């Protein structure tokens, strides 16, 4: 009867996947936002639920549930009003990055608040609605009451949402809004109200899902990150727009995943990779075309404010200027304490990862959420090549950079077939795939346990190593800035702005897309290998779960995503901020909060980041001076 047990388990998680997927579909239809922060919204509500029941033991669980669901709805409406409304006219990619930032902001804030409430570590269990120890017996399998509730409530609410969209006046209005927002507004629909209601429903349903499922595992800010990817996979089955397909996808994925638990040895290992595999297969089949018409796809496209709302020409700097800057930086490190030399080296390396985002996203317009994954590949390669095979640093570092390139060729080829939004989703899935496979291998990643990499004697000290890193990274920046100002840089911009016109003037877009992906992978691999030497001891956890990728994106965007200098500025701000919070205890929560908020703010208000602001200010000052001269002459 073990299969019945697994099947019922699967129905439970499947109901939660389905419910989360339904929420993702709703906000995608209403506002074109593929919300990465959806599960985090639910986790926030689950925390509220936990605190209520912890603080007020007399409170009935139903009341606490109601309050936390209301909180979820409120958080949904607020995230639309304050976070997504400012980027309403932007492309889906910009909205996706904003939601990526929001997810970081919510998770970081939860960590900070929760630990300040006296729950350090955050590894507690949520309260159950119904007893988890007792339950009913079904075909020989015992099912706790809480799990019965998960299945019934989860499926019930999800079905209810589907009916709401398919059968009611409100559903018709929502569909009209999704297909042609302008026409819907002209036809007299109160689109703001429809959007607000949709976001409230999405937030509330996320809260229900989270409160139901959280008691089965530890409660922490990252608790539902795995669910987020699976809900995305489920929603993708319906092209992010079809609710019935998303519900089916969720339940199917849940049941399949839990049935694999009982499968024999090689098969049960596949459990972790089903969701990423499903996403990749669905993307390559281009399943969305069965659900989304060309017209609808165009309706949700918007301006690429990332690239056209900022300064006319991003600041690149000449190769000589970068080399000079690197020399000055190397000299500046020498009088520092060992600790600050270490911290500065870390900042320089994060800037290098930021540069990989500059080239791939800022210049070529391709969004890949795997810079952290490539760094992980580089770090593991450093461990394999140096610690296990005994190669020297001088060989290991270039090899690690080069070896990351083939790993990305697949992504680059997929990029040619996929719309930017789907490519971004694909890279998230691929990052998850790497986490579950390569990053757990014994030969490659020491089975996820700690890996040790020793610096060679000639750069063993923190200062010597800092100078070596600054020399290498400075060279990479000089190289990048120089080709960025030339024919290659222009070709990358052409591929971003208008690949058809580029082809018509002799640019092989396949070549330049692959080149951009290869460069970003090589920079990532290089960064990872150097970081491995800097840290000396690390695990793949440093590179998994998109955290480092989020940091790289945020750093590049806050500094200025089209300018190499932006990566430097962003990285140093980030590292300095990290050091400020080191004493507060919740360091990783604070940094996640900061990078999340930074990403959201930059996308909404200053697409060219701090360097862009600086450039504009300098430009204005120069103009004012010029005007003064004119007046003098006149």
């Amino acid at each position, binding site marked *: 009867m073990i299969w019945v047990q697994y099947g019922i388990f699967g129905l439970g998680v499947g109901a939660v996947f389905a419910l989360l997927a339904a929420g993702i579909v709703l906000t995608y239809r209403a506002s074109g936002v593929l919300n990465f922060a959806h599960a985090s919204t639910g986790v926030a509500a689950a925390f509220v639920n936990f605190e209520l029941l912890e603080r007020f033991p007399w409170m009935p669980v139903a009341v606490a549930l109601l309050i936390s669901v209301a909180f979820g709805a409120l958080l949904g409406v607020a995230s639309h009003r304050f976070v997504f409304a400012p980027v309403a006219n932007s492309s889906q990619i910009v909205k996706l990055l904003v939601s990526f930032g929001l997810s970081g902001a919510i998770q970081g804030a939860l960590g900070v608040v929760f630990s300040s409430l006296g729950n350090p570590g955050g590894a507690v269990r949520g309260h159950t609605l119904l007893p988890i120890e007792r339950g009913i017996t079904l075909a020989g399998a015992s099912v706790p009451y809480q799990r019965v509730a998960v299945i019934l409530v989860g499926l019930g609410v999800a079905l209810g949402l589907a009916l709401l969209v398919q059968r009611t006046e409100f559903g018709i209005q929502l569909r009209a809004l999704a297909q042609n927002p302008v026409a819907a507004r002209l036809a007299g629909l109160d689109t703001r109200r429809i959007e607000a209601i949709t976001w409230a429903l999405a937030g509330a349903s996320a809260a229900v899902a989270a409160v139901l499922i959280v008691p089965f595992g530890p409660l922490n800010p990252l608790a539902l990150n795995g669910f987020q990817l699976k809900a995305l996979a489920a929603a993708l089955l319906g092209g992010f727009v079809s609710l019935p397909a998303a519900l089916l996808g969720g339940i199917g994925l849940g049941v399949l995943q839990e049935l694999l638990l009982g499968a024999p040895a090689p098969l049960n290992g596949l459990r972790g990779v089903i969701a990423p595999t499903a996403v990749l297969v669905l993307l390559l089949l281009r399943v969305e075309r069965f659900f989304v018409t060309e017209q609808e796809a165009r309706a949700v496209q918007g301006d*690429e404010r990332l*690239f*056209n709302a900022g300064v*006319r*020409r991003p600041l690149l700097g000449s*190769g000589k200027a970068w080399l000079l800057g690197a020399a000055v930086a190397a000299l500046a490190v020498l009088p520092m304490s060992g600790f600050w030399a270490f911290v500065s080296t870390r900042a320089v390396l994060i800037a290098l990862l930021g540069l990989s985002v500059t080239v791939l996203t800022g210049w070529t317009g391709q969004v890949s959420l795997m810079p952290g994954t490539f760094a992980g590949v580089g770090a593991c390669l450093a461990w394999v090549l140096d610690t296990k095979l005994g190669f020297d640093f001088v060989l290991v570092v270039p090899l690690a950079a080069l070896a990351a390139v083939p790993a990305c060729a697949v992504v680059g080829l997929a990029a040619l077939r996929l719309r930017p939004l789907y490519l971004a989703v694909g890279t998230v899935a691929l990052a998850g795939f790497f986490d579950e496979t390569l990053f757990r291998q014994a030969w490659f990643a020491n089975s996820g346990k700690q890996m040790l990499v020793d610096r060679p004697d000639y750069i063993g000290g923190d200062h010597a190593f800092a100078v070596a890193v600054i020399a290498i990274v400075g060279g990479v920046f*000089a*190289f*990048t800035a*120089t*080709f960025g*100002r*030339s*024919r*290659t840089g*222009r*070709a990358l*911009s*052409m591929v*971003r*702005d*208008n690949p*058809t*016109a*580029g*082809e*018509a*003037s*002799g*640019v*092989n*877009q396949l070549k330049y897309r692959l*080149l951009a992906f290869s460069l970003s992978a090589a920079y990532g691999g290089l960064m990872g290998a150097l970081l491995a030497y800097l840290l000396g001891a690390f695990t793949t956890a440093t590179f998994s779960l998109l955290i480092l990728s989020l940091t790289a994106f945020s750093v590049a965007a806050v500094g200025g995503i089209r300018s190499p200098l932006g990566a430097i500025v962003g990285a140093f701000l980030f590292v300095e901020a990290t050091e400020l919070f080191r004493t507060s205890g919740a360091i990783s929560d604070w940094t996640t909060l900061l990078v999340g908020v930074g990403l959201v703010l930059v996308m909404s208000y200053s697409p060219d980041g701090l360097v862009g602001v600086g450039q504009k200010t300098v430009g204005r000052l120069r103009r004012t001076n010029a005007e003064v001269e004119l007046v003098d002459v006149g």
Partner: protein
Amino acid sequence: MSAEPTVLEARGITVDFGGIRAVDDVTLLVRPGEVVGIIGPNGAGKTTLLNAISGLVDCEGEVFLRGQEISRMQPYRRARLGLGRTFQDARLYPTMTVRDTLAAAFHASHASGIFSEGFGLRSAAREEARVRDEAEALCEVVDLRRYLDFRISELSFGTTRAVELAWLVAQRPSVLLLDEPASGLQQSEVRVLGPLIERLRGDSAVVVIDHDVPFVSGLAHRLVALDLGAKVADGSPTEVLESTAVIRSYLGTGAYKVTT
């Protein structure tokens, strides 16, 4: 078969879009230095024909450029062999400056690669300086100097058209395919467009499609009329404009042919 030499030869071009035959067995011959206008009502298949010739849509039939078959080539390869074109929407590169856009037109005629550029080799630097000079010189020709450092998205539509023409001739194509160059322009702008094209094209051949029949017939040596994907007339402008098939197609009868 014409015995005269052609610079562009498209034979038996047929394009199907899921059951609808957009272009139906069209043959187009262009002699060196000739200006051919293609006219026809909406949906006649004019733009699709250009897209098939430049390789942007799949088609049946053969395309030869200066005697070389290019039918199976990627669009960028055709461009490098001398097939240049403009687009209906004239988007160009919205976030790039005019200076960079014009420099970008020289992409195919220069060879520096990422390593020679990145490592600052003298050859790459020299080439880059030459590209910059040529781009500026080009700007003088179309009188756009004051817009050099503007983003394309900041320009008026007419100015963007002018930049696009400069961008096109910078590629020194032997055949220019112009997709509705007059659409979206004011009458006053259309009047100067014809002479501008005539001046810029040098001895290149031109295939131009447009709705503005007076504009096209003023520019073209020869007109080709399309209707419902098929060629209905081919000859001197006066002949074609007086042919009954053309008049009928503009008045609009008939329906889309549906292939089985």
